[in-house]
């Protein structure tokens, strides 16, 4: 069924080649017979463009409102008293702002303790991800050795393996190692590379000229020296991208801590928040205050490092650097 639906796209490709051919033929246009060259053409085209732009802007504004409203709703609900939340119709702005919701949430749910725990894990994961993926990808991008392409294909293939297939046996492995109840199962794997990051990093290395490495080699530098002294500083933008994505991943990780952390004093924010949620059920003012606090660091990080967030997703543009 899928194939049938998509088949019509095959022919358009030929047609767009047709478009190209026609414009490559300037004589036809200069003959001036086409309606395109009427005196008002460019003007009317401009007006049309402007109308189209206004229309597009309106759509963009509408979608933006839809996308931002949940966040707005979370923040204002966190500042309302419970009596105002249940009232109908709901108020679009709190009648009275109740900052104490936050103070009470922090008392009921040790936000700073959990934030500190989460930060420890996150920092370790970020360091591990940045170092290991940069190191591994250098091997794939800049050193030639037999079997390299085959192993790289293996890296890409691991992206296709669903994490749940290895979850249970990994749990058994970490149980045997006595690591359950510690942060080690959450941190250690980060030091052994991640297929997506290796791929990202390798793309970036490919854009760096090999002459630099050859020159350093002639000067007697080893690959380790080249990687640590020349490549690490050169690939900073890619490293920041990896740092941000791994930060986000570790900060928001729920499954890992759920599986491995059972001592309440070691909880992360995600687990703490989930426990808080199951105890508080529909006390939306507290729940929204807790959610807001957990999301704030991510939002700040996003606005500070926006450029890297957005460029990091450009899988095709590895050569742009």
């Amino acid at each position, binding site marked *: 069924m899928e194939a049938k639906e998509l088949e019509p796209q095959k022919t358009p490709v030929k047609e767009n080649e047709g478009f190209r051919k026609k414009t490559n033929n300037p004589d036809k246009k200069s003959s001036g017979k086409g309606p395109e060259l009427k005196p008002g053409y460019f003007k009317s085209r401009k007006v049309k463009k402007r109308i189209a732009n206004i229309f597009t802007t309106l759509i963009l504004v509408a979608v933006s409102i839809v996308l931002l409203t949940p966040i707005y*709703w979370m923040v204002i609900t966190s500042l309302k008293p419970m009596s105002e939340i*249940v009232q109908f119709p709901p108020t679009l702005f709190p009648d009275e702002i109740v900052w104490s919701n936050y103070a009470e949430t922090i008392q009921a749910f040790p936000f700073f303790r959990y934030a500190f725990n989460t930060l420890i894990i996150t920092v370790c994961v970020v360091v591990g991800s940045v170092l290991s993926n940069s190191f591994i990808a250098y091997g*794939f991008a800049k050193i030639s050795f037999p079997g390299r392409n085959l192993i790289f294909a293996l890296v890409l293939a691991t992206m296709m393996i669903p994490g749940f*297939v290895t979850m249970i046996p990994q749990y058994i492995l970490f149980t045997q190692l006595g690591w359950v109840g510690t942060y080690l199962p959450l941190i250690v794997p980060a030091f052994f590379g991640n297929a997506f990051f290796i791929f990202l990093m390798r793309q970036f290395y490919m854009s760096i000229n090999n002459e630099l490495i050859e020159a350093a080699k002639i000067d007697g530098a080893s690959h380790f020296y080249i990687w640590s002294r020349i490549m690490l500083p050169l690939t900073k933008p890619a490293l920041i991208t990896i740092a941000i994505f791994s930060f986000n991943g570790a900060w928001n990780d729920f499954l890992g801590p759920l599986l491995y952390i059972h001592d309440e004093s070691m909880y992360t924010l995600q687990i703490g928040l989930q426990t808080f949620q199951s105890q508080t059920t529909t006390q939306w003012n507290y729940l929204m205050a807790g959610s807001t606090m957990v999301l704030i660091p991510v939002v700040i990080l996003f606005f500070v490092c926006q450029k890297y967030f957005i460029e990091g997703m450009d899988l095709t543009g590895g050569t742009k650097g």
Partner: protein
Amino acid sequence: MGGKIKVKKKTTMSMRRRESLWGLLFISPFIIGFTVFLLGPMLFSLIGSFTNYNITSRMDFIGFRNYEQMFTADRLFWTSLYNTLYYVAFIVPLTAVGAILMAVLLNQKIKGIKAFRTIFYLPAVLSGVAVYILWMQLLSPSTGLINTVLSWFQIQGPAWLFDPDWTKPALVIMRLWSIGGTMLLYLATLQNVPGQLYESAELDGANAFQRFWHITLPMITPIVFFDVVTTTIGAFQIFQEAYVMTESGTGGPANSLLFYNLHMWNKAFVAFDMGYAMAMSWILFIIILILTIINLKLAPRWVHYEGGQR
């Protein structure tokens, strides 16, 4: 002279060998990680799926009994598979269409487009429990925002997470809120489509829709393919939302949110029937593998590679 050549050959040989050793050294973390955290566990789970392993005492070989039980006796297995397929069937096409439309909108040359890009992407960075709690409030039948907005239009909103018919659509809507990541992938690709293609099409009188259908779409098919493959794999693994939004993984009303991985989780870490859970994980793996292979086989029919490279 002959000797000189020999020496040179020898040094290049040893240099090549040294180079290979360096290469292996650099990729060794991956090799170790792959063996210890992936290959080893996968082999263990394959063997374990034929046992009654319960992590503490027993690990007896029981042949295909786990698989047999799954297909014939465990009704919840079929429920969870149905729920998951339902979710995948909606998420994959909706994500692709939604993200492409968003990307086309954001690819226009309009004032303030950068601000719009930031806004469109923002929800994608937010994830985890806080977002699920936020959506539980938005979807709340009486005080939630969504039903309030619907009531402005005289529509009586459903009970969402409390109505078995509406729980999965609720999760689909929540997921669609954060398709900004996929959108960026498409946007980056759109920006690489040569502008003259559009200009010449416009001169030939192609309208906006024709330009989209005949130029944009064929040019982005490689990313559509990538997106379909990865979103399918991701959607099959839905777990956290269902776990948090159904009170510690109970599966929601009438088990309507009991997704495959949630059922597997309950078997493994609530009932401690690890052997059975590992058998389940292999069935999931095989389903995903088959779908990925079908995707790969169908790809040449519709994926258009510019210039045939890449």
